[in-house]
């Protein structure tokens, strides 16, 4: 009786999956879907470039923990999604992307707007499907959502030929809901091996100088409370990757801030000196480790990850634990508590170590030379942090803006820092802010941007205006592709080649022409006013153009290929000698 077209099944299945928002852009191959979508409760956000649809869906997922959904037509629609999907893929974000495709009988003929979407997206997805028969459609959608959110989350692409979505078949809500997904080659192991957990617990309790090295997996499995508990229980300093910012509050005494290329002195030194590296949901990326041989060179390494292939990929691991971070940490904490009764005296030495790392933090904080003449980009981020009480959802573009946001925004909560970590895609921040604002209409959402990056998806101002999204864009305008300029400055004798953005739009007028608000600050004393005004606007996007010091560098900086301990530090006003603290 309930016969439905492929397009109707598509919409219904998504409703049953609990999808509330889709980010997309129509075209010939998906006309039937759009025809039905109009009658659904699912809100469709019409972006202005498909890349933004993928990025917004990614951000929606990062903020909510649910699967983000985007939709594009065949051919150019699908290829435009690619960068956004690669962002999500690299950062293990659950996204399901639906693409139109030419009818099955035309596939392979170089038909109009045909591309091999499954071929193109294979290396940037966890899995992808080309649905060839209407009878496979509902099952495929179910599988797609399951694969995207389970195990190590990721991107799933579902390619929908036009004839398939026009065909008719039976569909029952109940059947869809009750169907269990069975994939024989896919059985993520979530519960860690108890023997390994016990071993790790013992190493921890007996360690003198441990460090918790926390990555995006902790956000994915929502294990931030466990991380904090473990840290407090054993007096262990914590450092996070860019992907895990917010897993522990910025102001937590045990938090040493971000580690890696632009990480803090304290975090990088703690890693260098530790005797136990406790990695959770982190993947030892080169931007984190610097020279691998000198990353935690004296440490016993424990690594918890849901993806066995991450363990031992870059760094040799002594105690691997395959499993979900939250489940494993819960078990581990139980074991630790038992062991602490047996070895209470070990706490003292760890307290000393923690103190030492805290001293590093005080002596060598993230730092810049303040100015009352020009706007320092770091000052803008500090002000944003102060005026939003560290509670805004921050998205970033890529480059210096991203690193300053990471260093100076005093983030309070997880799922509040969205940045393209693995891919490092300029243009991410603004669509991400849109996705985040759609997910959290009440939140303050700020894209901390560079003047280069923002122009990669500036067209989305129209989207934000259309849906009355009050996202704030803070452009740290240095007239340069700043991070590239910094590298040319440091490694290419200041031979600034093609990094000067000598022609720029007037960002204020540009915002206004889209129907958004444009504000500008040219002097330090104007910064606060501009931010306050921007924060007061609740019904449309605001672009804040901060004319910044042009040649400010991001520091600390570990030159590529160097060890973390060889980081270049900012010039602190009062030089204090580094005392050997432990």
């Amino acid at each position, binding site marked *: 009786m309930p016969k439905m077209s492929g397009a109707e099944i598509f919409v219904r299945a998504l409703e049953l999956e609990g999808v509330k928002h889709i980010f997309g852009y129509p075209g010939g191959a998906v006309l039937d879907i759009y025809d039905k979508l109009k009658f659904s409760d699912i809100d469709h956000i019409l972006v202005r470039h498909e890349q933004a649809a993928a990025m917004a869906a990614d951000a929606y997922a990062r903020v909510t923990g649910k699967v983000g959904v985007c939709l594009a037509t065949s051919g150019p629609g699908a290829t435009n999604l690619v960068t956004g999907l690669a962002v999500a893929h690299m950062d293990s974000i659950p996204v399901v992307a639906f693409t139109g495709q030419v009818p099955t009988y035309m596939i392979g003929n170089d038909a109009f707007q045909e591309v091999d979407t*499954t*071929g193109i997206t*294979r*290396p940037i997805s*966890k*899995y*992808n499907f*080309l649905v060839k028969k209407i009878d496979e459609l509902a099952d495929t959608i179910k599988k797609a959502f399951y*694969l995207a959110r389970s195990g190590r989350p990721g991107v799933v692409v579902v390619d929908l030929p036009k004839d398939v979505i026009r065909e008719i078949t039976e569909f029952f809500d109940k059947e869809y809901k009750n169907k269990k997904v069975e*994939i*024989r*080659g*896919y059985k993520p192991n979530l519960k860690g091996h108890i023997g390994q957990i016990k071993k790790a617990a013992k190493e921890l309790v007996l360690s003198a100088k441990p460090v918790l090295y926390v990555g995006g997996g902790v956000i994915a499995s929502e294990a931030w409370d466990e991380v904090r508990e473990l840290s407090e229980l054993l007096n262990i300093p914590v450092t996070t990757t860019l992907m895990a910012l917010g897993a522990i509050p910025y102001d937590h005494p045990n938090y040493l801030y971000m580690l890696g290329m632009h990480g803090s002195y304290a975090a990088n030194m703690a890693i260098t000196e530790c005797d136990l590296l406790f990695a959770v949901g982190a993947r030892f990326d080169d931007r984190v480790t610097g020279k691998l041989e000198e990353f935690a060179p004296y440490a016993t390494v424990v690594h918890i990850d849901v*993806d*066995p*292939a991450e363990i*031992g*990929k870059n760094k040799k691991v002594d105690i691997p634990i395959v499993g979900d971070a939250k489940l494993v940490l819960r078990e581990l904490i139980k074991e630790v508590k038992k062991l602490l009764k047996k070895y209470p005296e070990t706490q003292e030495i760890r307290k000393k170590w923690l103190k030492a790392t805290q001293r590093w933090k005080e002596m060598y904080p993230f730092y810049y030379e303040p100015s009352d003449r020009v706007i320092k980009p770091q000052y803008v981020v500090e002000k944003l942090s102060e005026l939003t009480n560290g509670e805004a959802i921050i998205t970033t573009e890529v480059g210096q803006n991203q690193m300053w946001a990471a260093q100076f925004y005093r983030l309070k909560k997880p799922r509040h820092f969205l940045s393209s970590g693995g891919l490092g895609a300029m243009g991410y921040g603004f669509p991400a802010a849109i996705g985040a604002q759609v997910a959290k209409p009440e939140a303050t959402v700020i894209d901390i941007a560079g003047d280069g990056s923002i122009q990669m998806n500036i067209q989305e101002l129209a989207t934000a205006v259309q849906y009355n999204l009050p996202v704030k864009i803070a452009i740290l305008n240095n007239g340069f592709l700043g991070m590239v300029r910094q590298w040319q400055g440091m490694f290419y004798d200041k031979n600034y080649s093609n990094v000067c953005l000598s022609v720029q739009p007037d960002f204020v007028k540009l915002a206004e022409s889209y129907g958004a608000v444009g504000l500008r600050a040219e002097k330090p004393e104007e910064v606060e006013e501009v931010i306050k005004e921007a924060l007061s606007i609740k019904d449309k996007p605001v672009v804040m153009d901060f004319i910044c010091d042009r040649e400010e560098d991001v520091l600390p900086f570990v030159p590529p290929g160097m060890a973390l301990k060889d980081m270049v530090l900012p010039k602190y006003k009062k030089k204090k000698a580094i005392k050997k603290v432990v």
Partner: protein
Amino acid sequence: MEKACYKKHIITVLVENKPGALARIVELFTARGYNIESLNVGETEDKTLSRLTLVVCGDEKVIEQIVKQLRKLIDVVKVRDLTGKPCLDRELLIVRVNVDTKDKKDEAKRLSEIFGAQIVDVSHDEYTLELTGDEAQLDAFIELIKPLGIVEMARTGRVAMLRSLYGKTFD
């Protein structure tokens, strides 16, 4: 980047018999810069599964990564590294050799007899020889017939499975 070839490993894989499954495996190797020496795909007793045998090169760390990355693929059901295990390991060779003189014909027949190769096709001045054996046998055979003049040859790549006294390849 040129990678030195370490010990050869023979890895056998059960994979869903689906479009895209093989592509994902092959692309894994190119994307991660692993070397495949040979790759064989074929049916199994179960129509929904294909069996792949891969010969790959690398140090222990690389091999471990290859196995893990293969296991991670959704369509891959089982993976087993058979290197050093008691297994049957065979490859098929078909080679057309030049035999335009009587001496050459005799030599081709003699070598075929020694190695147990079959002459499966004949023309005026060519024999087509077929040989099944392990890699070393095939290599030796090719080396010896080379002087006759190889016109064309093809090898299937190795297939392998555990000897039955030692249980099933995939348990």
